[in-house]
């Protein structure tokens, strides 16, 4: 089932709400002014995602993963080009990174930042759509675009990709929030979104 424009709008708004909460938490935690923006979202197949990653980012990527199961199942990932990940950690901690391979301490920090953003995004989806979900422990993965995709990904996997922009003072760092769903789970997501649109209208989510 292909999402309609209205459904895409509603999904973008859901993700925007989550990302907005994420920015609030990051601001509270780090005592600095961070803005998070989602310039666009896209619905992609695994092949399209692969192409998107290869075109838009360098080869080396850093990612934080959060698996979820329940009324809908899938994996949420926050993906950064390794250089952006390193800059982001430096912006948060003031600790200068030496290279693109994050050491386990800096990886732990990225894991926490990713955890905050993914929790608020997935949390807002589950709260608003009233999904009951169980979560896996978040994990950090580093590699190229081929080994960042969840292992269970199949050709019928649908990916909701939200470009996420971190604005920290004069720094602008871009990453992607990618939500991977099996087709049936994605259809369930769209049905839930549709029911919200019908009941409450997109703007009142």
């Amino acid at each position, binding site marked *: 089932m292909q999402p309609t424009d209205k459904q895409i709008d509603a999904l973008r708004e859901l993700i925007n709400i989550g990302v907005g909460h994420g920015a609030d938490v990051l601001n509270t*935690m780090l005592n600095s002014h961070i803005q998070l923006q989602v310039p666009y979202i896209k619905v992609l197949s695994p092949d399209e995602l692969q192409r998107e990653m290869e075109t838009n980012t360098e080869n080396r990527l850093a990612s934080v993963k959060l698996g979820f199961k329940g009324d809908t199942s899938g994996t949420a990932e926050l993906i950064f080009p390794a250089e952006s990940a390193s800059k982001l950690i430096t912006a948060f*901690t003031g600790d200068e990174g030496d290279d693109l391979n994050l050491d386990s*301490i800096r990886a732990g920090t990225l894991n*926490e930042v990713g955890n905050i953003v993914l929790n608020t995004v997935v949390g807002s989806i589950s709260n608003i759509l009233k999904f009951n979900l169980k*979560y896996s*422990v*978040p994990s950090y993965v580093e590699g190229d675009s081929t080994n960042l995709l969840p292992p269970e990904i199949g050709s019928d996997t649908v990916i909701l990709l939200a470009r996420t922009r971190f604005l920290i003072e004069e720094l602008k760092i871009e990453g992607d929030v990618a939500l991977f769903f099996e087709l049936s789970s994605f259809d369930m997501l769209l049905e839930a979104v549709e029911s919200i649109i019908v009941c409450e209208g997109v703007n009142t989510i």
Partner: protein
Amino acid sequence: MMKQEISMQGFDVLDSAPVGMCVIDRDYKVIFWNSCLEDWTGINREDIIGTDLRERFPHLKDPKYHIRIDSIFEGGPPTIFSSQLHKQLFSSKLPNGEPMIQHTIITAVPAQDEDDFNALFAVQDVTELTHLVMESKRAERALAKLNEEITEKNKELETVIHVTSHDLRSPLVNVQGFSKELCYTMEELASILNDVEIPQDVWENLSPIFEEDIPDTLEFIQASVSKMDTLLTGLLRLSRLGRAALNFEDLDMNAMLSDIKKSFEFRVKEAGMSVVTGDLPPCIGDAVQINQVFSNLVDNALKYRDPEKHGIIKITGERKGGEVVYCVEDNGLGIPEKNQKDIFIIFRRLDPKSTEGEGLGLSIVSKILSRNNGGIRVESTEGEGSKFFVSLPFVRDKNKRGENSE
């Protein structure tokens, strides 16, 4: 006695886990506090179970903690408090008195009332890991700084070599020119003296000065000037090598060695030698410089041939991991073991009298290979011959290589 009376609501199984673990309910009341946390914090479970965790750790009242912990009681996703951003969630000291660095993950676990959730804290001691990472970072930084300094010093040295060899040349040209002038003057003086009648006893004194002392001295001066000129030329070549721009490309080594063989054809025939090449894998490097490397090695094999044998130069290559190792082998004079470590050092010549040259060839080869991300080593037996092993980066994309070479 007290311990047995405390209900840990079924979490007892986690008591001996090698990580700090505690469980709280939505009022932050401690339900479970494992042995590890008792050791780390010095707080016994009898004293903390049933109390508000925030009384012991007031920083948890700060929104930066409680906003994220509160979401757990709604069954929200696990929450991470990483070591770099928080240092420690539960104030703890190591046996040496140093503060412990912690990485904590909090997950939702169903409460006894099935609609509710408790928060399970899993606290990992990452102090040692953090120190190891810091230590390795410090070492990396020191190494990078040292490398930077060495590169800077090398540049300085190259500049000094370039400037001095260039500047020394002008006075040398003067010495060369004026010593020649002196030769002509002496010839002129000799011819004038020939036309003048000189008493026999005076001539006997003058003759060795005019016919031996002065000409011999001038010959020494000119030979030394010529030697110094060769050395300065060599130094200039070496310093230019360090400054030359490199053009890295995929190299078809079969084609390159075939060209080199052609250029040495005459000398090889003249020396009654033969050159055999195997199938050579491609590599990456600067074509002009790599050609210079192999030309130099073939030239050396010709220079140091054993006149008693039919000389054979064999060039082979094989891929080893990410690099290709080429071997230039000869059955010439070989290099005595004690001299093998010196042959890549500038101006070192094993037998300066028997062959011409400035003692720069192998130091240039070594420098070229280092700039081309490669290397060189030698295996040699005196009287049997030498093997020079040249390593260079391998061309990864074989298909591309094939297309280019066809």
